[in-house]
């Protein structure tokens, strides 16, 4: 088989070579320069693709900023950021409710999610025997892929009736429901990355700790968790980014009412949910739409700041 292809190719190659020698003008098409040419071409294509990725980010930033900043030609800076009056019908565009809602929701989610994730991470990396670990890790990875709409649907049909029953309140949607749904969504991500971070701590650290007579609790608490600190921080920030940007699951359980969330069970609204509920009903050239784009720009800035924080952490981790 090898021989036949070899034999088949031989005359074609030689004829090609012969042609190139005969006709001096067809030199660019001989094998050597053809390879050179295709290498160059491939390289430029790759460069183009990489610059395209950067270009998209800048296009998004530019577009969101340019559209968003038009808001301030109609209302003042302070009105947008410090007013709680969101009545687009009456030309009032105060976004404080949504900004506060996003921060409160993220903080509440992390408050519930981080301790549980750490326990799962310790459970997976220290306690569980290897065969069970190899079975559980893919399951957690699978959970990351479950669509957010499904989580929202479950929150709407299972969690909210449950909250109504337990607290006896009439509605059930609000920050608490949204934070619980987000916790379930973020949990696999945060615990898997923390698990990786804890597993990456050199075995000699925990061996040394055990050899000094430390109990398992002491080893985990005083050796493993501090050593894996930067990895765990990375996981938490990643979870935070997901909680800030999550849209559909939150929309379905938060209630979508523009009022300040001074109670956990009060229907409210966050940046993402407000954008997705209103954007399709407004004309593009209106202050309302500009305000929504400005809110999107805020989200963008928050998530980019988190990336900067992650880079900073990584550099610090590399130095240490």
């Amino acid at each position, binding site marked *: 088989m090898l021989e036949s292809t070899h034999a088949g190719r031989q005359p074609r190659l030689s004829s090609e070579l012969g042609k190139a020698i005969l006709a001096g003008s067809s030199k660019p098409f001989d094998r050597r320069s053809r390879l050179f040419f295709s290498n160059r071409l491939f390289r430029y294509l790759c460069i183009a693709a990489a610059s395209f990725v950067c270009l998209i980010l800048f296009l998004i930033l530019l577009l969101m900023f340019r559209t968003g900043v038009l808001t301030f030609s109609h209302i003042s800076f302070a009105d947008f950021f410090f007013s709680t009056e969101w009545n687009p019908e009456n030309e009032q565009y105060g976004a404080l409710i949504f900004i506060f809602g996003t921060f409160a929701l993220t903080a509440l989610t992390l408050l519930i999610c981080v301790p549980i994730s750490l326990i799962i991470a310790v459970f997976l990396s220290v306690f569980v025997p290897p065969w069970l670990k190899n079975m559980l890790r893919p399951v957690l990875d699978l959970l990351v892929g479950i669509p957010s709409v*499904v989580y929202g649907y479950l929150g709407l049909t299972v969690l909210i009736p449950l909250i109504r029953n337990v607290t006896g309140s009439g509605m059930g949607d609000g920050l608490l429901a949204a934070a619980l749904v987000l916790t379930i969504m973020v949990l696999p991500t945060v615990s898997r990355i923390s698990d990786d971070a804890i597993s990456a701590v050199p075995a000699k650290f925990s061996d040394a700790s055990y050899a000094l007579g430390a109990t398992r609790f002491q080893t985990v608490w005083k050796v493993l968790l501090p050593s894996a600190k930067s990895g765990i921080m990375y996981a938490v920030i990643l979870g935070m980014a997901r909680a800030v940007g999550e849209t559909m699951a939150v929309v379905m359980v938060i209630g979508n009412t523009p009022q300040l969330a001074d109670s956990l069970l009060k229907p409210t609204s966050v940046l993402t949910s407000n954008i997705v509920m209103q954007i399709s009903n407004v004309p593009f050239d209106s202050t309302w739409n500009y305000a929504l784009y400005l809110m999107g720009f805020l989200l963008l800035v928050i998530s980019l700041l988190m990336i900067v924080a992650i880079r900073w952490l990584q550099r610090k981790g590399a130095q240490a």
Partner: protein
Amino acid sequence: MKHTLEMNPSANPFSGKKGLNRLKDRMFTGIVWTLGVLIIAFIFGLLYLILQDGLPKITWDFIFGLPSEIDEGGGIGPTLINSFYILFISLLISIPLGMAAGIYLAEFAPDNKLIGFVRICVEGLASVPSIIFGLFGIALFVEYFEIGLTILGGAVSLAFLNLPVLTRVTEESIRSVPKELKSASFALGGTHLQTIMRALIPAALSGIITGICLVAGRAFGESAVIILTAGVTTSGEMWDFSLFSPGATLAVHLWYVQSEAIVGDAQEIAQKAAAVLVFVVLLINLVFRIPLWLNARRTKRS
């Protein structure tokens, strides 16, 4: 030794502390095991809950039926097809671009400030919330190109969402290929392109495919981008492959039925749609991984 300590506590000045430590350790072990097992059980319960409510009730009529606004018994046919269609187009756009960018970063890029900046851009783009891509899609397709809410707009916006993830996955998997393979290919006289195409990419394939299946699962279930750029309705025909018809996907339909629709059996449709959605996402993960798993077994044996 444990025994002797317990028998005369006065012999060891630290014994009181030791008892406390052991108690703490026991409690810690207990708490971690209980919570760990509880949460794992909870996760399986969740999956079971979704699948057992919906899967038994699914019929072919439901999967291939047209959705209805008023009458009961609507199906999900067009939305399911749109889901796959949009997924297919978005992957068609994002896989070549993402892989090329990843290959550039892993193989060609010099190690300087500019490339460091490009890496930050890719990472930054990966962390941009999906709804921002939706807003971007509206501004680009609805406003600038004025084609309205279409399958094309949804697919391209979705491709942008997937692009950075694919870039990073490709870069990481190519970087993790052993140096010997690359050197061997160069030593045989392979050009850089031949080395990449015939040595590096095949060796990195398992990582790349895992990344693609991750992205595909995410894109299949993504709804915020699709609502904004492809709308919440379908053209109402079964096999409509026009790029310019409105393209609600299954995930969008689930949200729509659950929160906006007025159909009588909305609850049941939502149950079944959620089950189909989860089932397909699990299937995408499994189907993509089986060849990898077989491949890993084969290479291990040889």
